[in-house]
């Protein structure tokens, strides 16, 4: 027991007292935040106001466009978009960019230009001249037959690549044309406003007890939890393999085996590395809970309606239990692989299947989030190999009955017992076999060797 503890301490300190652990612990949330926030920040840098000439001989579209692009309207739109985006944390990057651009309130200054009776070529020549002289930035030509299906609105711009400004302009233009068309169809302005109002859409989840709750926050939280477990299991599994391969490669195994039982050594390694993983996760989770708490409180205070995902201490306990189950399943597989191979590169090839299983488990968590009580979700969240990721996700999305959680723990506990036994059989022999990678029949022989 004393030797086992010595191994645990050694493995734990080896990971936790390294700079990389500190950096990784700090950096991971930072990188995750970067992915979510940086594009929004970059695109929130306002461009300069676009000076634009609108050439509209019909004089029907230009006034509406000007109204749509007035500073008040733009501010209104921006605020609405901001509220949407808070709810929409799981939107794709493209959607985020788009909503980002809507929040911007890109501004336009309308320059006057008297077209008179000049021909279109003449006008374009003059306006191009103005652009070159930097008097204006762009001009828009509204076709006289704008109601035609293939009428083209043409924008000539000094900065045609400014898609944020273009996007704002396009939206405003669309709205202007649509309302003009409706006006042409004899629908009053007031009626028009009424008709084009957006619906309010709020998804509320009803749990088994009939309580309602908002679903947005939960979706995001479950996804993060699933991802955290997936990444931590993959990283720490690899660490186990690295540690095993190092001891084999450097022949330290020979000294270790002459000092302690192989089972003690392997279990000490699994427990030590597992505790290191737990430490990192605990740091992340506690700081995430604190940060999310603060952030949500601030958002609510500023009037944005968000629901705080209802995470109970019991959920956190379950979360750690399932992390540990997952850790021992994958760590023993990685330890087994490490003692079969002669280098990390070789190990990488063998590690592909377990990493694949892990990834599939992560993808299954999407199905679980969408419908936590489906038959698929039930089986997937108790299945060995998958449950460590899918069950915590399910617990967050919708607390399953206790017996299902217990069943998942028992099934995966049994899987661990089997895998640890298997891994220790292979470890005890494989660690002393140098020179070449073991074949599957050889490994089978090692397992059966007394």
């Amino acid at each position, binding site marked *: 027991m004393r030797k086992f503890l010595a191994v645990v301490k050694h493995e734990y300190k080896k990971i936790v007292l390294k700079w990389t652990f500190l950096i990784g612990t700090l950096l991971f949330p930072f990188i995750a935040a970067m992915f979510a926030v940086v594009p929004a920040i970059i695109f929130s840098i306002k461009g300069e106001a676009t000076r634009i000439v609108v050439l509209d001989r019909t004089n029907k579209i230009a006034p509406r466009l000007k109204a749509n692009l007035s500073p008040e309207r733009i501010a209104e739109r921006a605020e609405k978009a901001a509220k949407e985006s808070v709810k929409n944390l799981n939107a794709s990057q493209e959607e985020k960019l788009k909503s980002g651009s809507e929040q911007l309130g890109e501004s336009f200054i309308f320059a006057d230009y008297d077209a008179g009776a000049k021909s279109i070529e003449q006008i374009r020549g003059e306006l191009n001249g103005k652009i070159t002289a930097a008097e204006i930035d762009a001009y828009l030509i509204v076709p006289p037959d704008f109601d035609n299906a293939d009428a083209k609105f043409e924008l000539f711009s000094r900065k045609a690549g400014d898609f944020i400004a273009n996007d704002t302009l396009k939206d405003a233009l669309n709205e202007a044309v649509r309302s003009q068309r409706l006006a042409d169809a004899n629908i009053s302005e007031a009626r028009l406003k009424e008709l084009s109002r957006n619906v309010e859409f709020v998804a509320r989840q009803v749990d088994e007890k009939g309580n309602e709750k908002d679903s947005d926050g939960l979706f995001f939280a479950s996804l993060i939890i699933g991802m955290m477990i997936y990444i931590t299991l993959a990283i720490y599994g690899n660490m186990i393999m690295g540690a095993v391969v190092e001891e084999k490669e450097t022949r330290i195994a020979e000294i270790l085996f002459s000092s302690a039982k192989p089972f003690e050594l392997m279990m000490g390694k699994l427990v030590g590395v597992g505790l290191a993983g737990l430490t990192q996760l605990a740091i992340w989770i506690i700081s995430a809970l604190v940060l999310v708490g603060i952030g949500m409180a601030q958002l609510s205070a500023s009037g944005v309606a968000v629901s705080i995902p209802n995470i109970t201490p019991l959920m956190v306990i379950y979360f750690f239990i399932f992390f540990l189950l997952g850790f021992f399943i994958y760590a023993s597989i990685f330890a087994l692989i490490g003692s079969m191979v002669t280098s990390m590169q070789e190990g990488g090839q063998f590690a592909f299947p377990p990493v694949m299983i892990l990834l599939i488990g992560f993808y299954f968590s999407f199905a679980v989030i969408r419908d936590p009580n489906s038959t698929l979700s039930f089986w997937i969240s108790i299945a060995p190999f998958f449950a460590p990721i899918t069950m915590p996700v399910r617990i967050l999305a919708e607390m399953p009955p206790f017996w299902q959680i217990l069943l998942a723990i028992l099934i995966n506990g049994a899987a661990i017992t089997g895998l640890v036994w298997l891994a220790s059989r292979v470890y005890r022999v494989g660690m002393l076999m140098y020179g070449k990678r073991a074949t599957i029949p050889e490994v089978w*022989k090692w397992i059966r060797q007394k």
Partner: protein
Amino acid sequence: MSEQNVTLRVENVTKRFGDFAAVEDLSFDVKAGRVFGFLGPNGAGKTTTIRMIVGITAPDEGKIELFGKDFTGDLQNRIGYLPEERGLYKKMKIIDQLRYFAALKNVPQGEADKRIDFWLERMNLGEWKRKKTTDLSKGMQQKVQFISTVLHNPDLLILDEPFSGLDPINVEFLIDVISEFKTQDKTIIFSTHLMETAERLCSDILLINKSRKVVAGTLREVKQSYGKNLIALRADGGEKVLEDKTLIAKIVEHADEKELVLAENADAQILLKTLIENGASISKFEQIEPSLNDIFIERINETNA
């Protein structure tokens, strides 16, 4: 412990890997306070035997007794093993590695720290204590490895090729340390290919080949049993006598003398007499013991045949 205490008893031990017997029916005793030379060519079964002694693997048949008891895991704490294939954690500080290896032998940390300082100073490695393995030269790593073998003050020291990679000064130094252990009545099993070193250090010899025992005994006994048919000769004349196949089986020419292997049933005294009678002027005529190297080569070739 007296000279007669048996530290290690190997009794009819066999170890098989599939159909191949790496060690077959091997028996020997190692006594306390002796340096035991465990010799044999590559693949003879030395490493397999040592691994069974230190408890890395178990014998298929036969038994191993250490310090008069059947082997148990606890006895590992009394053994210091320096494997031939050595290794340290590459990116770990020397002090941390040594602490870990000591902890695995159940040495309390305070005690371990004292001994680590003592040994690092003794090996002139004091200033490398907080450096990583990769910062050390090969020879230094070798010495660190040796320290890890003796930190728990073992009663049985098993050294597999301890001198490889060391410069002559460090070889002498290590020999001093080994002799010191010997005077403390500790037992040293010493496995090597270097017959000269073995001859110098070992009080007992075990030679194995092809999984089996070939020669065993004290160094003295072994050499004496082979020491009757070799003669070192420096002489002028008498060439005719040397060609007589009934007297001499083989001649090995050295720079300024000849090494003669007597023919079967030939007598050294008769050879000397014949040489003088044939007018040879003799400046050296010495009956010599064969070197361990000679015995090694001869016996290995015999058992291979």
